């Protein structure tokens, strides 16, 4: 293994937890990741020693807290190679980031006769906000289909993009693990005169992200999947776009001037951060970015490729045709997220039996019902790994599946 996973695991107190005297095998990181001590400690220390409201009051404490909050923003901006920290907006979660895009950029730019392009592998967060708006504004939603080997079928992309104003797509499927050719897709969008909006929830925690190299216009991701706390998400967008977009939520913090007749809004990024933000959580996210940088995102990716390879072979060698993995076979083209069917056993029953062995997987539709229909499954069991996962977690999964075999 490239990473010293044993040393990494020691930094995650939840991973030391035992149930019924046995260790847990957490394989639900695509859903949410666990948190290292440095994140927990940074949040705790900030609340004990550094907490104050930010951006409003002028006393020393408030100034220091504001600097800490803005320092975290700078860390996040560097983490994805944004041109400026003014391009980084903190939201409640990535879902809110997508709603911000639809309600602000979408409302201002999409009307009857317009079209946007999504793909069949999107999470509900990159479908429903658009559908909600389309119901009012009457624009068309088009879809990039899938190939048989769980990739996006980009053969007709130029045709699909004709007349499209935005191409919004996931950089990595939360169900299939498929990593999409984000750079090429952004370029194709631009060639057609569309902006490229990337749902980075599954890729940003697992590989190096450079928004400038990708050529993206917007990127949404969440803190809680990348070792940070819940309660904060990120929207990055090119400054020109953010400048032209109307505010999303109104209230304190996002204004420059308010009178009985109206308001003017604040400069970026505050224009999009109405109300008291999740200050402590942003501090935690900053610590998570430091933690990931300390390990190295390329190292994380390499580790997950190795682990994907290991898991793929372990599962298929032991169970052969009894297991169907819904996703690409080449570990270079996928992340360490495995959706699978085990014989004809319902995924809930699979996860129930696995739980008996402290193997934590998600069963269900993974908030991607259109995709589930396309792959012909109402639900799948999904095992997803991260930088703290290792062969022992895979081995536990493989062993526990044997018990599923014997019960059903």
């Amino acid at each position: 293994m490239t990473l010293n996973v044993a040393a990494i695991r020691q930094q995650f107190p939840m991973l030391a937890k035992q149930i019924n005297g046995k260790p847990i095998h957490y394989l639900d990181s695509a859903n949410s990741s666990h948190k290292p001590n440095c994140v927990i400690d940074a949040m705790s220390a900030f609340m004990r020693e550094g907490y104050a409201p930010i951006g409003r009051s002028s006393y020393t404490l408030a100034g220091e807290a504001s600097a800490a909050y803005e320092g975290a923003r700078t860390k996040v901006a560097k983490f994805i190679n944004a041109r400026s920290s003014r391009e980084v907006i903190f939201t409640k979660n990535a879902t809110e980031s997508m709603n911000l895009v639809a309600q602000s950029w979408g409302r201002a730019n999409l009307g009857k006769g317009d079209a946007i392009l999504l793909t069949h592998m999107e999470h509900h967060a990159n479908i429903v906000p658009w559908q909600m708006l389309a119901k009012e504004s009457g624009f068309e939603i088009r879809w990039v289909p899938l190939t048989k080997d769980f990739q996006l079928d980009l053969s007709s992309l130029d045709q699909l993009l004709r007349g499209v104003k935005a191409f919004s797509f996931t950089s990595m499927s939360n169900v299939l693990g498929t990593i999409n050719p984000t750079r090429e897709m952004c370029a194709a969008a631009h060639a057609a005169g569309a902006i490229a909006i990337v749902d980075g929830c599954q890729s940003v925690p697992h590989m190096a992200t450079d928004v400038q190299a990708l050529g993206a216009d917007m990127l949404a991701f969440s803190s809680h999947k990348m070792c940070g706390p819940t309660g904060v998400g990120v929207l990055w967008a090119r400054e020109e776009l953010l400048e032209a977009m109307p505010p999303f939520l109104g209230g304190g913090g996002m204004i420059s001037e308010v009178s009985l007749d109206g308001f003017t809004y604040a400069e970026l990024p505050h224009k999009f951060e109405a109300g008291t933000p999740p200050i402590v959580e942003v501090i935690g996210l900053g610590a998570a970015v430091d933690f990931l940088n300390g390990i190295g995102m390329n190292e994380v990716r390499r580790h997950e490729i190795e682990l994907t390879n290991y898991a793929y072979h372990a599962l298929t060698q032991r169970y052969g045709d009894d297991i169907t993995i819904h996703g690409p076979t080449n570990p270079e083209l996928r992340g360490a997220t495995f959706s699978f069917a085990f014989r004809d056993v319902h995924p809930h029953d699979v996860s129930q039996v696995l739980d008996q062995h402290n193997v934590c997987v998600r069963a269900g539709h993974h908030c991607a019902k259109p995709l589930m229909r396309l792959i012909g499954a109402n639900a799948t069991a999904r095992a997803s790994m991260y930088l703290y996962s290792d062969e022992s977690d895979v081995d536990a999964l493989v062993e526990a599946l044997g018990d599923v075999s014997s019960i059903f």
Partner: protein
Amino acid sequence: MSNLEDLYREVILDHYRTPRNRGELPPPATCTEGTNPLCGDEIKIFLNVIDGIVQDVRFSGHGCSISQASASMMTAIVKGKSLADVRAVARRFKQLMTIEEDDGTTPADIRLGDIEALQGVVKYPVRIKCAVLGWNTLLQGLNSTDA
């Protein structure tokens, strides 16, 4: 090693593997759909009620062993019963699942029989919704029949 015997009792697995009354009924039977949005389970209950008696009942759809076995057992027990008795059985079942309290109004002769095997589900709270999906759908169907 498994403590799952309580959940996956043999009678439950039997109903799962060999469901009773699986299928559909043509109109004038009513069809009521129920879904569990959290897990994607879907069920349809077909009811043929004549003169206040459940003459025939079928279920279709897909779901886990608990939801399918529970629906199968349910159809077996409600067939031929009066609507009042069906409601009483449903209430007793929900009491078994600890989602309704026993207020003492359910007649003593209303028994669940094999269905009591589902009691093990209570130890796994996230699975209770699986067990009651068919029952809630049936009750919805009864309500629309009444209307």
